[in-house]
């Protein structure tokens, strides 16, 4: 493994680009004229999700080619490429040869510099703002997985980056996948069309098993740096994953945001903590957040990642006339004054994300999920802030939070003390 000492571009963002005038009037860098045939795709983060996204990208466009990949682990790259090549219809388009396989924390830059047109960002979410900014600066179209940051600072940076993407006519599609589900799209159309009457409350659950539990410290190989150990076990560290509410339950948070027309709440309060030992990690294993929206509308989000408990992933949307239920049975249904059950052919929502992205690139009609992906991520972060501090947090507070969860410098070989797990009433809002 090479040494990669990355002084994050994030610091530059913090220092003074915020609020700076955006470069306007950029020409369409990749227009339909310049992409007559192949669309070169770079993959940053070759895990299971990244490999899935790469496959969807190549399935979306017959002339899409995977030409460069990045990860922290060659074995992960090898596995990913092998998996993709097993698809006979993709085989010839998986072209990331060894000279275009990049390792380390700055490998994303090399993928960007390799001449790709589209970059898929599927690393742990803490890196997302940095990677996204570099992609848009270099005029790349982007598919990025959710969430898009692990602190509000990252969210603000992403908001600025997504504005730049708009200016540059670049497409930016986010992996908030329910937005690309035709089934949920139809359902929210009902909701927004008034099928429930006036919206009263939204209750969402995300009770699952632990996603990637922390291994015992004894499994850490001798000599492995803090940074490497934490990145390899990224789900257990707030700076990398954002915590369970932000990394996983953000799908439910995103549906809440959608139901509220992506308008922000007034404030929220929340509880959360950890009851199963974290083995050196610092994330919580349960949250319950109560959001207050204008006109007294409430949204409640409950998530838990503990084995052996009751599991559920559902949405209950209460209106003055009817109730919408998602996730109790395979299809959404509305009961009450309106009685409606979704029926139809479900599209693969993950595939649709890429089908639309690549069509947008071909047609030079850019898509931009920037604002709503930032809003949904901040909505989850706001809940985390409320639970971590034990305070009521307003949307404005959250949006302007100065909390720096993501380190300014990430040194692959460096030491990186783990911030203590937040303690409500003691941990301060920053």
């Amino acid at each position: 493994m090479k040494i990669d000492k990355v002084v994050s571009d994030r610091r530059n963002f913090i220092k003074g680009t915020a609020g700076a005038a955006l470069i306007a009037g950029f020409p369409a860098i990749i227009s339909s004229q310049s992409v007559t045939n192949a669309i070169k795709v770079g993959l940053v983060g070759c895990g299971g999700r990244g490999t899935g996204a790469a496959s969807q990208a190549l399935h979306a466009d017959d002339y899409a080619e995977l030409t460069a990949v990045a990860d922290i682990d060659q074995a992960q790259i090898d596995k990913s490429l092998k998996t993709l090549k097993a698809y006979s219809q993709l085989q010839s388009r998986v072209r990331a040869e060894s000279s275009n396989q990049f390792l380390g924390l700055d490998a994303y830059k090399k993928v960007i510099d390799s001449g790709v047109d589209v970059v898929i960002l599927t690393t742990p979410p803490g890196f997302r703002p940095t990677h996204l900014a570099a992609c848009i600066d270099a005029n790349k179209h982007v598919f990025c997985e959710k969430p898009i940051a692990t602190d509000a600072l990252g969210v603000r940076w992403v908001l600025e980056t997504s504005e730049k993407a708009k200016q540059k006519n670049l497409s930016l599609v986010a992996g908030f996948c329910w937005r690309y589900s035709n089934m949920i799209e139809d359902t929210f159309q009902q909701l927004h069309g008034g099928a429930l009457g006036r919206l009263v409350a939204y209750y969402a659950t995300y009770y699952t098993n632990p996603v990637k539990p922390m291994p015992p410290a004894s499994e850490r190989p001798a000599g492995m740096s803090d940074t490497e150990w934490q990145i390899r076990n990224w789900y257990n560290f707030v700076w990398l994953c954002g915590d369970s509410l932000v990394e996983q339950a953000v799908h439910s948070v995103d549906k809440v945001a959608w139901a509220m027309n992506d308008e922000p709440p007034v404030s929220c309060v929340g509880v959360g903590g950890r009851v199963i030992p974290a083995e050196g990690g610092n994330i919580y294993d349960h949250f319950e957040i109560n959001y207050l929206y204008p006109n007294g509308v409430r949204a409640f989000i409950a998530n838990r990642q503990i084995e052996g408990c009751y599991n559920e992933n559902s949405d209950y949307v209460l209106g003055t006339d009817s109730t919408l239920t998602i996730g109790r049975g395979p299809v959404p249904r509305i009961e009450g004054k309106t009685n409606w059950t979704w029926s139809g052919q479900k599209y693969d929502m993950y595939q649709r994300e890429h089908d639309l992205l690549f069509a947008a690139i071909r047609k030079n009609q850019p898509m931009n999920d920037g604002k709503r992906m930032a809003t949904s991520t901040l909505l989850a972060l706001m809940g985390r802030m409320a639970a971590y501090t034990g305070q009521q947090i307003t949307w404005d507070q959250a949006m302007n939070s100065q909390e720096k969860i993501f380190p300014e410098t990430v040194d692959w070989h460096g030491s990186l003390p783990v911030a203590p797990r937040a303690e409500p009433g003691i941990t301060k809002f920053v």
Partner: protein
Amino acid sequence: MLGAVLLHLSLAAQVDFRSAVAPILEQQCLQCHAAGAHVDLSSHQRLLDQKYVTPGNPSKSPLYTSLEKGSMPPGGKLPAAQIAAIRDWIAQGAAWPSGAVLTAPKSQAPPAQDAEMQNVREIRERILAHQQQKPQPSKITIPNTTVSYDMVPIAAGDFQMGSSAKPGSNPSAQPQHEVRLDAFSMQAHEVTWDEYRFFMFANQAGETGHKDAAVDAVSRPTRPYVEMSFGMGINGYPAISMTQHAANKYAEWLSAKTGEFYRLPTEAEWEYACRAGMSEDRPSDIGDYAWYAANSNGKYALVGKKKPNAWGLYDMLGNVMEWTLDAYAPYKAGPQTNPWVPATEPYPQVARGGSWNDPADAVSCAVRVGSDPSWKQQDPQLPKSIWYLTDAQWLGFRLVRPAKVPTAEEMYKYWNNGVEHDEH
């Protein structure tokens, strides 16, 4: 050692065993009929001893006649040229060069020293020992738990498999053909989450306190990413959304735990049990027997709440569709005994019985459903899970316990479909 070299020489153009015969046997027959199998076609000695081949007389050689009739191989009749090669080879004396050893294609053959095969042998020893101890019970409690299930004995017999509806009305279930089956017992109910979760989570099955190497060696599902009951209920409800591979491994796990041999039912066994003597494809009062679209309220129900069929089996029709052991292949006319079509491709495998999500005409003893890659659509990861079918929220299974304990090689094949990884 192979048998002696026969010296039947023919004046006609000699069929070359190595180039013309061995490849057919290896590729078409030895997947199932390798050394150690009940019907063993791997050596000259076995061919002659078991009279599968009568040198010089193709019509008295079942190896040839079964190919000619098309009853073998199960995937469909071989090309005429291959059948002719076998015929001529037998007619010319069925010469088998000294030292020729036939082996099944590598991807299919479990090497005997394979750790997994070794574990199957251990489980089988356990089953044989257990069988001698006592008669097979009808109520079994999963060891170290309080969860039990009921077994219904089903006698050997024959029945008309396939739809009795007018020809052409349900082509995948036709032609109707006679099937003869050996005796087996079948679980009275679909496997519930109460049972299946012990397989998913070893710590909940009390396995940390009761270490058992043979149980530990069975591969088990990864942690599911999403909540796999999709809000439809756990206690007393059928387990759903597992791959056929997962159901096979559950059978292996349960066999190791209980010391009884379990596997998925073949399609024929399933249909025999579903009909329970009934010649119509479904009872006229379907709502008394089955949860289906018209009465399910959009979800599965607690198992065993409807009337059982004539043999005491609950929810064979409706509630959740049930996995069988068979790959999907068109029916062939003519009588068959213990038919089974093993998988050669990841899709389609057969599920039966219809579900809470199906209209009445799909809830039938005859309707066959082939599995499809779209059943895993909701899995965003690659490679896709070999354990979960996140979009098949209407699919479960139940197991059978055949009266006769098979060989270890057969057990291995029942528990390893070999096609759990999606091809593309």
